[in-house]
């Protein structure tokens, strides 16, 4: 068979394909394209570390320079996944250390990373450049020290919200004196103080430093020194933003900020003293991203700051902003694309701030580019949701958390079915949705009918029966991730839609009504799924088959059952049925 193009040409063409979807499509054209593509794919994304094994990945893609792996299910963020569940990085690193000596990038989310892994990374990959550990855990600052000491070409070290055992701040001092390649450093999740002089010197000698996110321990008085050494910074995160009010500190800050002509993103702001916020006003006109979600500052101060940021695209803020502040936001920030409002007192019985559904409605009306919302509030109405839906049909992500579970429409006391129904009906590009409040099966009927682009759905304390789950599984064509907790969904809908599960990345169900028997059946009949029962009460077969399991995690895989399961995880498969019954 004669090919129209030599392999090299095809390879050259494929190099322009960056999306995994495109590359996957290309690999399916014919065997030779599959071969060419697999030899030239450099970036791998593994959405579920148990869906595939390191060996399979390496066998198919022999020359990889960047790997992104996700581990635990999303609900692990809320302590629903017991400790010790899994998602260990080490087997990946040890396999890749042998096969990918030129690996440059490792980005991880919700994985368990040990100091051992970090050390192995630092010693195995000579050209290692990028390490992003997002919501990871299991390592200490000693592991960071290995990275700092050995990765001579490191560009990015980002510890986004990881849980690090903070033994000391000495790790930073391990960056060698001749190390100058740093572009991005995010240590905001660490507790200990690092040596400030080491930090200063590091910042001074890295001319390409664009992102610097400090931790809380860096005091506000020291910020000017750093900013002066890095006027090229694009993203900056402060430490604790408080000190007694002194004019010299203030004026130093003003001056230092003024020198940063390229700043676009600000974050940090723990323990804010409002009087120091104006020090930033000089840079606010260029700011596109503002993370004030730790800033316990009242609405007027927030409004004053926000009113200086006409180019704001992304705002994370506490509910101290209140409806009034959101109104101001909607009038000043017409470019706003993403808004996240976090609760300042989620466990209080009574609202402590005047933030209601009205704030969100106002923003939806005033900000035409708003596409991504995460909103915690205490009351919601169908009318508000319908208004939001009509105002913003361009919403892509809509995550609403009404703090009280099963709270109805506070005006009519009805379920919020029609409200969320309006959201999915109007927002045709919606990819991610989180529900809350009082919801019946009807909302799922709406979702199944309309949410055709929906990829991720989070459900809690909702629905009446299996019908709800059935609507979702049978109707949502693009669904990849479904996570459910405390809903009366059981065996029927799950089993009836078993085939759907192979088209999805994963399904999580906890505190629902799925029986052990159903899990066994699902596991037996669907060999390409791992059906895992998580139950801390002991082996499921010590209880009747009809007994619901605590937690169920189902995901498609080509790697077979897990070999690293803890005691409280059982894989339902053919063997299980025979072994356990």
């Amino acid at each position, binding site marked *: 068979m004669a090919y129209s193009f030599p392999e090299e040409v095809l390879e050259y063409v494929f190099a322009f394909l960056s999306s995994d979807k495109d590359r996957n499509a290309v690999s399916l054209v014919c065997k030779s394209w599959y071969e060419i593509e697999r030899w030239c794919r450099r970036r791998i994304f593994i959405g579920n570390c148990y869906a595939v094994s390191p060996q399979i990945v390496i066998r198919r893609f022999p020359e990889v320079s960047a790997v992104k792996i996700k581990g635990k299910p999303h609900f692990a963020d809320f*302590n629903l996944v017991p400790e010790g569940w899994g998602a260990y990085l080490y087997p990946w690193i040890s396999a890749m250390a042998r096969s990918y000596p030129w690996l440059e990038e490792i980005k991880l989310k919700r994985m368990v990373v040990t100091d051992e892994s970090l050390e192995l990374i630092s010693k195995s990959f000579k050209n290692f450049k990028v390490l992003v550990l997002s919501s990871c855990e299991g390592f200490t600052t000693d592991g960071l020290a290995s990275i700092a000491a050995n990765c001579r070409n490191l560009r990015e070290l980002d510890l986004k919200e990881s849980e690090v055992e903070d033994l000391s701040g000495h790790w930073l001092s391990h960056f060698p004196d001749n190390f100058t390649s740093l572009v991005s450093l995010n240590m905001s999740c660490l507790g200990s103080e690092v040596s400030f002089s080491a930090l200063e010197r590091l910042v001074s000698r890295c001319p390409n430093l664009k992102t610097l996110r400090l931790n809380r321990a860096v005091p506000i008085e020291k910020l000017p020194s750093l900013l002066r050494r890095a006027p090229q910074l694009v993203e900056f995160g402060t430490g604790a933003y408080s000190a007694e009010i002194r004019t010299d500190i203030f004026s130093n800050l003003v001056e230092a900020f003024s020198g940063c002509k390229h700043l676009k993103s600000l974050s940090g702001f723990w323990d804010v003293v409002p009087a120091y916020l104006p020090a930033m006003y000089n840079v606010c006109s260029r700011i596109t991203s503002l993370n004030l979600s*730790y800033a316990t500052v009242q609405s007027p101060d927030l409004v004053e700051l926000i009113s200086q940021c006409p180019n704001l695209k992304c705002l994370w803020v506490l509910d101290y902003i209140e409806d009034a502040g959101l109104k101001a936001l909607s009038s000043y920030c017409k470019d706003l694309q993403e808004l996240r409002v976090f609760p300042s007192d989620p466990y209080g019985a009574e609202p402590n701030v005047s933030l209601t559904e009205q704030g969100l409605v106002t923003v939806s009306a005033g900000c035409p580019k708003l596409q991504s919302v995460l909103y915690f509030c205490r009351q919601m109405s169908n009318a508000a949701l319908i208004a939001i839906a009509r105002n913003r049909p361009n919403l892509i992500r809509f995550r609403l958390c009404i*703090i009280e579970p099963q709270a109805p429409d506070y005006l009519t006391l009805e379920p919020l079915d029609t409200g969320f129904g309006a959201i999915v009906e109007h927002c045709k590009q919606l990819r991610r949705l989180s529900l809350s409040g009082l919801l019946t099966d009807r909302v799922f009927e709406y979702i*199944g009918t309309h949410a055709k682009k929906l990829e991720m759905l989070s459900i809690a304390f909702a629905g009446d029966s299996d019908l709800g789950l059935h609507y979702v599984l049978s109707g949502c064509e693009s669904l990849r991730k479904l996570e459910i907790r405390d809903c009366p969904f059981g*065996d029927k809908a799950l089993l009836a839609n078993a085939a759907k599960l192979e088209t999805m990345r994963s399904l999580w169900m906890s505190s629902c009504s799925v029986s052990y028997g159903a899990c066994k059946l699902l596991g037996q009949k669907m060999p390409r799924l791992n059906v895992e029962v998580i139950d801390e009460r002991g082996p499921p077969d010590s209880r009747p088959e009809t007994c619901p399991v605590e937690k169920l995690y189902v995901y498609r895989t080509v790697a077979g059952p897990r070999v690293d399961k803890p005691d409280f995880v059982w894989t339902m498969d053919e063997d299980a049925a025979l072994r356990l019954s």
Partner: protein
Amino acid sequence: MSPPLLGIEVGGRGNAPLMSSSASVDCISQSGSGLKERNYLGLSDCSSVGSSAVSNVSEEKKNNLNLNATELRLGLPGSRSPERDSDFNVLTSGKLDEKQLFPLLPSKDGICSLSQKPIVSGNKRGFSDTVDGFSEIKSSVFSDGKWMFNATGSDSGTPQSVVEAKLAGNAGINVMLSNNSSGAQPSMKKEVPTRAPQEGHNKMNGSNNNSSAPAAKAQVVGWPPIRSFRKNTLATTSKNNDEVDGKPGPGALFVKVSMDGAPYLRKVDLRTYSTYQELSSALEKMFMCFTIRQCGSQETPGREMLGENKFKDLLHGSDYVLTFEDKDGDWMLVGDVPWEMFIESCKRLKIMKGSDAIGLAPRAMEKSKNQN
């Protein structure tokens, strides 16, 4: 050949009325083609049963749904909790009415009796009970005898073979749908599943149980969905701002608990306990499985009862003690200081062997004496 699966006959035959979306209907017809209904139990197809009801099913079904919705609205305004529960009650009976339209198994008596199950009132956290109610109701609603799970629930007979027999047709729901001669096999008794789920749920929602609700609002695990990092940060922030005026601090206080010899850690939220006793029982439950292994590898995992007693003995005996690391990094025995002081200063917990913990007690006492 795709693996056979249980077909669902949601609400009886023909799902069309319930799922108005065209996509679903397509789905139905696609997978409906070429499928034969199988009659595994050698019973005659009762195609005529209730077929007269079929034609108007959609209308009636919709009306029923609407009716139910209306009934929901008639609940008491004001007090949410009781209304909510009455909602569940109403919904339950509503669904049962629907069921009478469909040629379900004759065990209407069985269905009706299910609705007598009392639902805990005024208790949002009684969700588990409600769910149990539903798991039973569901089985009656959706069962047409094809769902052998329920049937085998009560007899410990051969679930395996019966279940095997049930797997017919292709992947997905729609096996039976296009066939009118559906599942009514009257002699397939809809048996009530055992009440095991009740216990299971209550145990599951142990942490949510009202009986253990602290003085503050009962907290549901993982709700509202806020990451620990944020929770802990906010907690420390408000402490610094002196906002804590005598009431229990905001947020959770997660500390890691490790145990000598256990392969992995646990995390507990100290704010969910108000006494040492509560903490101790919770930890016992959590780490029981490790001690079972340790104290006898001959024991099979199923022997929980035996293990539980043994663990208690271990913990209260000399074998294991609970220690904690305080803000200064010192390890001390748990129990020496008042509970409030303890949770203020505890950074992590460790279950140590008694022999390793010798010498800790005096330090704790001295320290608190010095601090006082």
